[in-house]
């Protein structure tokens, strides 16, 4: 057990702190994703190696060596300083790593630099109304007609579709192949004729998602990533990436600390919530679990650095546990406020801008999205514990 990062990293951390102290007034504050301050900040971060760190310079990145601990320190310090880090979004977090691994040279040069610069926004077209947990049964089709694919079908839960310039999309190109082998990974512009976007309001009363409909959308033939028919495997590499990032234990810790502050200030019958032993007991249970997941995360981090392989289960349980715990943490925040916890929208008496209700519902969404808790349990038991898959049933609804 050695939890120190070492002198090289202490130095790196200090440099980053100095950078943040001297540049924080240039950081964007609440401007839109396409605003000039956001793009300028992104450029500055890439130049210093605090964004797009390991992406080669010829594709617009910083060109640094992969270093898990440095990436970790960057995340920690930006969060601690409450300064926005490099641009995120599904283009940068999911598409860019995929292109680096499986894209052609031409695709890398064409798509990665503008994506990193914030000039090309992406959305992800995976789920469909009839293909949720069973994603590989997706039916949006692409048929080759001369030099173009003709796309028909629809996607759902498409975040940022209304803002995106491009979509990376799973489509069925080989209708006669087994379901996992008939899919291709297609890139196309969102202003192509035949695309209709309808906002989908979720239970938080915000439209975080959209439905997207494709009618004879024509896409140049070469805009496939990886080989035709291998889209499932192209997509799977980054689905794993998404699951890893959903369980950020540092975010849970920050929220837990906020909850403790709230419990020290909220009163009922003139008594602080923290002085109520029942609430305090719930808080301590949650604190232990947040700590356990933070330590689980350190264990995974350590095994990635040291190349050991005994953390398979520790990784598989992260998405399930982190989302369920966060939902419970937010629920305690609401309970200690009682009726004040119900306040939502733009009225008076809001605590933390109504974020407790908002996160309580949002994390319910994350329990479902990115592979539901039930799918996670299948994965844990099959890949982690070596239990067999459920035999296929042939019963259909209404059949």
């Amino acid at each position, binding site marked *: 057990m050695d939890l120190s990062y070492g002198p090289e990293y202490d130095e790196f951390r200090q440099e980053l702190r100095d950078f943040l102290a001297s540049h924080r007034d240039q950081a964007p504050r609440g401007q839109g994703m396409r605003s000039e301050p956001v793009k300028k900040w992104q450029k500055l971060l890439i130049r210093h190696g605090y964004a797009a760190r390991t992406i080669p310079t010829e594709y617009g990145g910083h060109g640094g060596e992969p270093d898990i601990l440095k990436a970790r320190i960057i995340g920690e310090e930006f969060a601690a300083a409450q300064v926005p880090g490099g641009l995120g979004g599904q283009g940068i977090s999911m598409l860019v790593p995929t292109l680096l691994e499986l894209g052609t040279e031409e695709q890398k040069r064409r798509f990665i630099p503008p994506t990193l610069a914030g000039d090309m926004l992406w959305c992800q077209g995976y789920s469909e109304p009839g293909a949720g947990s069973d994603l590989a049964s997706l039916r949006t089709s692409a048929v080759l007609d001369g030099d173009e694919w003709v796309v028909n079908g629809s996607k759902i839960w498409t975040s940022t579709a209304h803002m995106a310039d491009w979509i990376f999309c799973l489509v069925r190109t080989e209708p006669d192949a087994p379901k996992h082998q008939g899919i291709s990974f297609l890139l196309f512009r969102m202003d192509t004729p035949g695309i209709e976007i309808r906002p989908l309001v979720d239970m938080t009363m915000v439209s975080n998602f959209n439905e997207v409909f494709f009618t004879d959308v024509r896409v140049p033939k070469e805009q496939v990533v990886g080989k035709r028919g291998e889209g499932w495997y192209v997509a799977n590499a980054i689905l794993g990436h998404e699951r890893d990032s959903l369980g950020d234990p540092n975010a849970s810790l920050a929220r837990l600390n906020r909850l403790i502050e709230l419990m020290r200030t909220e009163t009922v019958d003139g008594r602080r919530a923290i002085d109520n032993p029942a609430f305090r007991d719930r808080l301590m249970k949650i*604190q232990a679990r947040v700590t356990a997941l933070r330590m689980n995360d350190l264990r995974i981090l350590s095994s990635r650095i040291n190349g050991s392989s005994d953390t398979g289960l*520790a990784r598989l349980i992260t998405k399930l546990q982190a989302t369920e715990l966060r939902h419970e943490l937010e629920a305690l925040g609401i309970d200690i406020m009682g009726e004040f916890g119900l306040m939502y929208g733009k009225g008076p008496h809001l605590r933390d801008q109504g974020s407790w209700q908002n996160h309580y519902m949002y994390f319910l969404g994350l329990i479902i999205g990115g592979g539901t808790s039930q799918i996670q349990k299948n994965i844990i038991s099959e890949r982690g*514990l070596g*239990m067999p898959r459920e035999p296929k049933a042939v019963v259909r609804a209404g059949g």
Partner: protein
Amino acid sequence: MEFGLSEEQNLLRESVDRFLDDNADLDRVRQYADDPDDRGDDIWSGLTELGVPAVLVPEAHGGIGLTALDAAVIAESLGAHAAPAPYLSTAVLAVAALRLAGDEAQQAAYLPRIAAGSLRIGTAVSELSGARQGAAVEAREDGTLHGKALFVLDPDADAFLVADRTRRFHLVRADAGGLETTPLPQVDRTRRIAELALSGAPSEPLRGSRDPEVALRVIDLGRVMVAADTLGAAQEMLDQAVAYAKQREQFNRVIASFQAVKHLCAEMAAEIEPARALLWYAAHALDEAPDEGRLMACHAKAHLAEVGQFVGKTATVVHGGMGFTDLLGLHYWFKRMGFDRQFLGGPERVREEAARVQGLA
């Protein structure tokens, strides 16, 4: 940066596991449970050859002076085997009390004999984490002890570590006059406890325990070891449940292929994995991050108690009717974790202490 067990710690775990696989299997555990005269001497002497009682004894006193994390690795193995051994009492609590509060002469007299496996010390300390009705020990000026201690662990020992009601420690020889033990039959038959009636038993004080911090630190260490015991037992119950589900057939399939069963097993694994990391960190913090040590010990103790209760129930349910039988013997681990949950403070009490440590209560 390395979060996890070292190569040496993995080897330690393997060597204790191998010995207990061969010498403390379920048949041997049953034998111990059924025979009140069986002190498990063969098990303890085998563990002594592996250095188990010496783990926390400093090298200067004939021990190997390892860390709390090493000691936790051993505790985990003992829990995994539901093994009867005076480890928690003699090798952990008594050694910690002697190291923190014994004078040079006391350390030189007792620690080498503990390390050599020739001195067993039972512990009468449960009043430190909750004095139940009828329990209290008073130490008089003349060095005699009076009153009653409840839930004394390993009463078939050569001597006792006794905490009085001012939270100071004393050593009493088992053959001293004015001392009577009455066994307390309890659900976990891999551990023996008794009540100890003291009517003027001569004792020697561990003078360093006038500092109230000593008793707290002994309990911190004990709690982490009890939590490690539960971790080992919980992992063993999960392993048995998964193995059973893979061979038991109903409706023409192994029950491990039913999602209802798979999800129970996944839920156990999902609770155990982060608890393992928490436990390792709590043990590490006792030596290396003293500011956090007490809080982490509380969290490890309370959290593992909850995980243990969940796994005990769930793994039994996966076994169906067989899980409920004595024939299968799964209940030895269930009851082991039941003991761990209450000993040195139940989860509600320990969480209250966790809140107090942070100034929240």
